[in-house]
């Protein structure tokens, strides 16, 4: 083909490797997610806490700066596992908000206009399709969770007057692992729920509901049956426990119940399997009528 001749011509150029098709999906998904002003607004909001904590770490490590702002305290705050736990918790809940906005944008546009038959008629598998979209979501959520967390850790290591990094390396690995688990869970949960709801606003609500409604049910189960196992439905509670253990922060004295790490892991894996089954049922080129 040629614009001026309007004739068809076959393509004889080079072809990209098969594995890069997933990145094409990720690229267009990423562009779609970030084309919204609300995404940019949410992202800006997500970066505010790390900036505040950055300032706090700066003050904690700089007596001169503390003197300049008139602080009499010898330490503004203690930079330890507890501080990074707070950072991780705040950023993780911001990530939930961001994922509830971004995930529906990645999937529902394709479903609303029945684009799957065309998309999947290209050399890309259903797994590849979901994986490509997950990369876009995972990357977006990473930028507001473990990336700023590790940057703060690096800054603390750099600005601390005493050797700090080597003794606290478990904080960095725990923060990275905890954030990656949460972001991966949010990615698959967001995509699975979005694939079942064609309206984006409803999908956004469904993602929040999927996190908080079972938590409410779990609290009722715990209250009625007087058992700690109801908390296995409470994703925020489970994640808080997991993060605390990964970062090595002491367990809070106010927490009456605790759950074994193994049980938390099983529940998270189970949630991922359910999401995978939901995606498997919906991400198809054709709806097959059985009977």
């Amino acid at each position, binding site marked *: *083909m*040629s*614009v001026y001749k*309007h*004739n*068809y*011509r*076959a*393509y*004889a*150029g*080079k*072809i*990209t490797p*098969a594995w890069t*098709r997933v990145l*094409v*999906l990720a690229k*267009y998904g990423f562009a779609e997610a970030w084309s919204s002003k609300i995404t940019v607004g949410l992202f800006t909001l997500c970066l505010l806490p790390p900036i505040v904590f950055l300032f706090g770490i700066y003050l904690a490590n700089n007596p001169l700066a503390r003197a300049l702002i008139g602080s009499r305290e010898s330490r503004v705050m203690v930079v330890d596992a507890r501080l990074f736990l707070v950072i991780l918790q705040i950023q993780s809940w911001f990530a939930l908000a961001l994922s509830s906005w971004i995930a529906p944008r990645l999937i529902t*546009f*394709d479903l*609303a*206009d*029945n*684009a*799957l*038959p*065309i*998309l*999947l*008629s*290209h*050399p*890309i*598998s259903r797994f590849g399709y979901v994986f490509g979209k997950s990369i876009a979501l995972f990357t977006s959520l990473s930028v507001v969770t473990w990336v700023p967390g590790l940057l703060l850790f690096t800054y603390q290591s750099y600005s601390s007057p005493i050797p700090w990094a080597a003794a606290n390396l478990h904080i960095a690995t725990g923060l990275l692992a905890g954030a990656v688990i949460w972001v991966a869970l949010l990615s698959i949960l967001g995509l699975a729920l979005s694939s079942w709801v064609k309206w984006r606003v409803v999908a956004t609500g469904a993602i929040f509901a999927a996190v908080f409604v079972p938590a409410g049910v779990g609290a009722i189960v715990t209250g009625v049956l007087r058992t700690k196992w109801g908390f296995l439905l409470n994703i925020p509670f489970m994640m808080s426990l997991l993060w605390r253990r990964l970062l090595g922060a002491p367990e809070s004295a106010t927490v009456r119940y605790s759950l074994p790490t193994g049980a938390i892991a099983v529940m998270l894996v189970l949630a991922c399997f359910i999401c995978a089954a939901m995606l498997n049922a919906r991400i*198809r*080129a*054709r709806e*097959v*009528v*059985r*009977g």
Partner: protein
Amino acid sequence: MGIIDLNGLEVRFGNRVVLDGLTGELQGQAIGLLGPNGAGKSTLINTLLGFHVPSRGTARVFGLDSQRDRAQIRGGIGYMPENDSFIGNMSGVRFVRYMAELAGLPAAEALERAHEALFYVGLGEVRYRKVNSYSLGMKQLIKLAQALAHGPRLLILDEPTNGLDPIARQRMIHLIKEIRKEGSVRLLISSHLLHDIDETCDEVLILKSGRIAALCNIEEERRSNRSFIELETVGATERFSVSIRGLGCECACFPGGRIKLVIPDNIEARDLYVIASEQGVQIRRMNRRRDSLEDIFLRAMDNEAGRADHVSL
């Protein structure tokens, strides 16, 4: 080896057999896929694309197995689905570029080919508009553009003229003919409109209840059939028919001066006019026709022998 080889292909949805032991070799430049609703046309296309797993038998495209080599097959196929299928909030050019990149074109080439494909199908002026603002005809055309952009070896068009007005339909048929003429792309066109297949295809596969009712080369079929002439006459019709029988024509007379005749190759229409003039008969109307695809299709639908695997008409 054909473009598409079917070997005892059976596809089931649950207990329902949708494609029942299809066997045949399709090798035309443009292959028409005909059949009534529910005959299994779209299922066959979806199976060729690897969307459905055969319960028995195999389907091969360019010698590649539809299941085992589906990624390779899809790389060489451009698919235009029957129903609306696009990403509505993307501009036309972005959508086509996206599809071309997914097919394996590098980003820069994909953008270039997207512009070219959109101009080629006649959407050049609206390529920056969002796809969901397009009319039905434009949506059909953008599906064709995305199927063409990466330069496929086989173009699968599922009901390409669905919902188009006569002008848009003509444009679509014209485009398909042009693509066929260019020669580098093989076409598989599914339609329930016989006229569309008649105009664009040289080979036809007719499906009925998931089985092959006919598989034939349209041109050869036409050549093998004799030509008919239908006449409407006024005057001494009986005497006129006796005279034209004398020329070697097979002839049947009907009330109202209508005569239907099969003429041998050495007889021209002019000869009929000469005899009519000599006998004072007026020929008011003359229709020359050969076996149409409609005749082939109807025979295949009626043909009990069509239940065999491979039927030649």
